């Protein structure tokens, strides 16, 4: 898994590629939390390069989503592959995150 960070003003874009599985979930969560604490703006996670999301990956996003919700900030997801979009729709995450 690879995570590239882009700063756009106060907003951060995290470009993720690879598998969001159990071994990668913790580093992914750590990157998200680091991004949340290092900026005051919104965060967008670009999942164009992600072709696999397990429950561990979903939970990492959920943890970040909760933190952003508490801080009253926006966490958005973008460029989801159809298969990945399906798991977000099924799990109800589409109601929690803005999906671009």
């Amino acid at each position, binding site marked *: 898994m690879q995570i590239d960070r882009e700063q756009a003003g106060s907003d951060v874009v995290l470009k993720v590629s690879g598998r969001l599985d159990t071994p990668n979930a913790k580093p992914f969560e750590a990157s998200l939390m680091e991004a949340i604490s290092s900026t005051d703006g919104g965060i967008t996670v670009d999942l164009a390069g992600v072709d696999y999301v397990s429950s561990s990956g979903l939970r990492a996003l*959920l943890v970040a989503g909760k933190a952003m919700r508490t801080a009253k900030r926006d966490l958005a997801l973008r460029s989801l592959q159809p298969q990945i979009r399906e798991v977000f729709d*099924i*799990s*109800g995450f589409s*109601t929690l995150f803005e999906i671009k």
Partner: protein
Amino acid sequence: MLAIAELLAGLGLLFIGLKLLSGHLQQAMGRRVRAILKAATRSRLIGLACGTLAGAIVQSSNAVTLIAGNLVRGGILTTRDAIPVVAGANIGTSALVFIASVDLKVAVLYLVAMVGIAYQFRLDRTAERREWIGVLLGLALLFLGLSFIKLAPQDVPRETMAALLNGVTPLVGILIGFAAATLTQSASTATILCVAAIGTGAIDLSDAFFIVLGANFGSGIATLISAGNLQGTGKQLCFAHIFVKLVGCLVVYLAWLGADLAGYEPAARIVALGQNGPSFVISVVFLLLQVTGAAATTLFCGTTEALARRFSPPSQEDNVSKPHFIDDQAMVDPPSALELAASETDRLIGNLPELLPDLDQRAADNAAHRALHWRGAHAVGEATGHFLVELIDRHLSREDLDLALLLQDRQRLLLSLQDTLKEFADVTDGYEAPPPLLFNLAEALRTLVLELAEARNGPQSEIELLLELTTDRSTVLDRIRRTLASGAIGTGEDARKLLVAVSLFERAVWLLHRLAGTLRDTANAANRT
């Protein structure tokens, strides 16, 4: 030919009657039987008496053994407490044998009339009345079946009957009884058949003695066969059941043998004894077998327990089936008892993720381990349900009653969710490599279940988030169903399995939403106080 038809019809009616009788009695009296059995902790004698009463009420020592096994798993009884109960249940089942030994032709007519009137005038509208009407119908069919069996030999030529009579040696009698009890899984059924056969003159009392002896031992073996894959405590009680039967047979047979050796001619004496009422005498023999077996097993309860443990050591399932919090002693203080029930339910919610496969870590996943956890969690869930029902039956304060009803609702939802997760896991276990849709459903469900486990102890915002995540999914899931119906994802058996998985997922999400709702209600109630 008519005799065979009458015999078969009689047997059919007898079996239907027994099934109806036992099934409806268990439904009508199940809770009361549980309450009776709980008193068994006081002493062995009380345990024996409780078991006798329970056996007489439900007319199935197997059913009492099963209930006692559940109470042991639930930590309410110890195996040692349960042994006299199982022993007593065998004595209790003698009641039906005695009833069957009486000529109840007129009773059948009245019973049928009562059942018919009850149905015609819709007296079966409440669940309890329905069960009792079922009991009456069961009794009527049982007695009717017995009358048919008694009638059958009248159409058999005398010479054929004589040939049959001559063929019953003690060993053949024992084998016939053994086979009949193993097939019917009941010594009392085989003995009732024997009672009917005596009534027709097809066999005499000394033949019947050996048939009943074989039937008694056969029903013990039948219990072991029907125990199937049961392990640990459940099977220990099956062995206790067998010991009751075996010891009863040995004691009574040795007494017969002793009498024979001493020149008392037991065969002739028992025939003479039964000249006026042979059916009653065979009922007494049946009772004697149960009483001697039960008395010896109860008296040597420790030895019985040690032997049963040796044959069936405690299993892992016994450990996971034991409640961690609920305890009947706590019922004297309802607020504490409610706290314990809440903690137990809370623990079960925390363990829900163990019921689902982790498809991302398939190598570490163990279906047998998950099934074991499901059985354990289900047993504790049911024990918590019984605990709450009994608590609600006590005079609770308004506040305690509200909480008890809320916990009961949560416990019922939890049991349904456990079952749904198990069914979902069964679908995924059917695949070496689950298709992408099933993978997504499984991982989404796992995420939501993990969230519930976390939310139960978290701040209220966690519960609110879970409620949001588990809102109605029908739009998304209907779209998936349409795609499946079009054959775009899979065809035939695969599509059917996926449709089942989608429905189970939808049910699980709905149950998760309802469970989260009960957690919010508890949090709101706590905030108010």
